């Protein structure tokens, strides 16, 4: 039987000051898979991420119908603290995540674990593992504020990973980073995905997302307008353009040439490698 660590069923949500930010959203995420969330700013991506560990609606208030089940816990029936041990959220700006009081990387990663009351030996072990996983080994003694943007975001991921969440949620983790920072963070996410971590990631960098997302949902004005396998969703070029999302360039290119190439939508390339193969043949 398949395991679904994340089940979202017909969720509709209004903030106290904004109506229907999410409308009838339903999806499931299989254990060990990566779900990408795409859509323009204001479509509800962040709200959906925050609903996965109960911050929405428990902290923000407002009205929510439907249900969210994460790691077999209904978010209405468990506290944010309980949910947070199973669902780790990484925010867009790493500076929002860091404690602001830790003077070293090690302390920063240990901080959350200490708050949760883990014994010292366990904390030390997990800190070491988490720092290694995100590729920051050797920088343990540095101040979090001496790091580059990409390193800070990887540190933020480490602080979340140290808690060993069943589900890792990343809300536009590369939006504020330069190309090196984006590369570093994507490499870290890909490694975690390859290691079987269940991941939900909201992203505007569609061409990167195409290389590692198993499933993708597209949000627009609070509605889920597309859902399915990554390849299927990203090949829906016209629908994506309608909601203001640019598909990968190579996918859009192939869509423009679909008549000349006599190619059907389910054969569109969504990654550079697939496109190199296709156009290498076409131009032979």
């Amino acid at each position, binding site marked *: 039987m398949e395991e679904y660590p994340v089940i979202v069923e017909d969720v509709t949500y209004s903030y106290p000051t904004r109506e229907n930010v999410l409308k009838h959203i339903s999806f499931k995420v299989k254990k060990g898979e990566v779900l990408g969330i795409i859509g*323009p*700013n*204001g479509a509800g991506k962040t709200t959906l991420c925050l609903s996965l560990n109960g911050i929405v609606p428990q902290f923000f208030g407002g009205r929510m119908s439907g249900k969210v089940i994460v790691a077999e816990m209904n978010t209405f029936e468990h506290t944010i603290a309980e949910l947070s041990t199973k669902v780790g959220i990484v925010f*867009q700006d790493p500076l929002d995540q860091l404690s602001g009081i830790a003077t070293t990387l090690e302390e920063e990663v240990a901080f959350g674990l200490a708050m949760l009351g883990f014994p010292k030996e366990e904390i030390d072990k997990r800190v070491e593992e988490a720092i290694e996983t995100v590729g920051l080994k050797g920088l343990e003694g540095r101040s979090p504020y001496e790091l*580059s*943007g990409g390193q800070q975001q990887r540190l933020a991921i480490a602080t979340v990973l140290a808690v060993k969440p069943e589900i890792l949620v990343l809300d536009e983790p590369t*939006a*504020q980073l*330069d*190309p*090196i*920072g*984006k*590369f570093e963070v994507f490499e870290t996410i890909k490694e975690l995905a390859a290691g079987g971590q269940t991941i939900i990631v909201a992203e*505007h960098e569609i*061409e990167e997302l195409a290389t590692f997302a198993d499933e993708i949902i597209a949000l627009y004005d609070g509605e889920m307008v597309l859902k399915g396998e990554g390849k299927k969703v990203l090949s829906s070029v016209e629908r994506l353009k309608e909601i*203001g*999302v*640019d598909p*990968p*360039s*190579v996918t*859009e*290119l192939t869509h*423009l*040439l679909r008549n*000349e*190439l006599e190619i059907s939508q389910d054969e569109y390339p969504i990654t*550079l490698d697939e*496109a*190199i193969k296709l*156009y*290498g043949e*076409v*131009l*032979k």
Partner: protein
Amino acid sequence: MAEPIIKVEDVWFQYSPEVVALKEINLEIHSGEILALIGQNGGGKTTLAKHFNGLLKPTKGRVLVAGMDTKETPTHKIVAKVGYVFQNPAHQIFMSTVYEEVAYGPRNLELSEEEVDRRVKEALKVVGLEGTEEMHPYDLDYGKRKLLTVASVLSMNPEVFVLDEPTTGQDHVGRRVLSDLCIKLNKEGKTVVVITHDMRFVARTAKRVVLMAEGRILKDGPVEEVLYDYETLRKAFIRPPQVVELNLKVGKFPEKFLTVDEAAEMIRGILKSR
């Protein structure tokens, strides 16, 4: 050739004795150009751009704006020539209505109220924010707030626009709106300098690209030359737009292209001629 609007002559800049942010920079920007300044954070892009309007003065060397040395000219004269749109709208916006925000600059130029009003209306029209005059800037969404910061520079009517990472935090529609706006300003005769990490934006917007790394200019040339210099870009850890990479890796296209539309047109031509 006409005198450049911005001339950077052997400029070095140090934030402190240990931190040398710019090394031996020589650069000429001519009136009417539209160029992108690319490179990693910490490479010197923003530091250099802040020399263009006198926000920073060189430690060594000199910067001439419309022939005026930024070290010897009062800043208000430089600022009237070169407008700077900051990366974070929150660092720029401080009035309580959209109208007042855009009127602030021209009022400081001591223009008549009619002229101020005319400029505010014109600037809001260019960026597509007419009708929001009485709104609070923070009631605009992030993308529109960015456009507001452009309008408040536009109302000063500078010759040169410097936009510092306008694409950061923007979704795809927001990036396209900003690209269109840069192209429009340039068509109206403005010189436009954009700092960005988004190579698809660069390919669509800029005609010239300056690549910086470790405080130096690594490459300066036409957009198709720089974005096709895979080796140099790789040294700076930058990937060209996906269609450029496709062109380079397939290696069978007769010419360079920069955008999806250009690529489609070329491939269509090849297929037809067979």
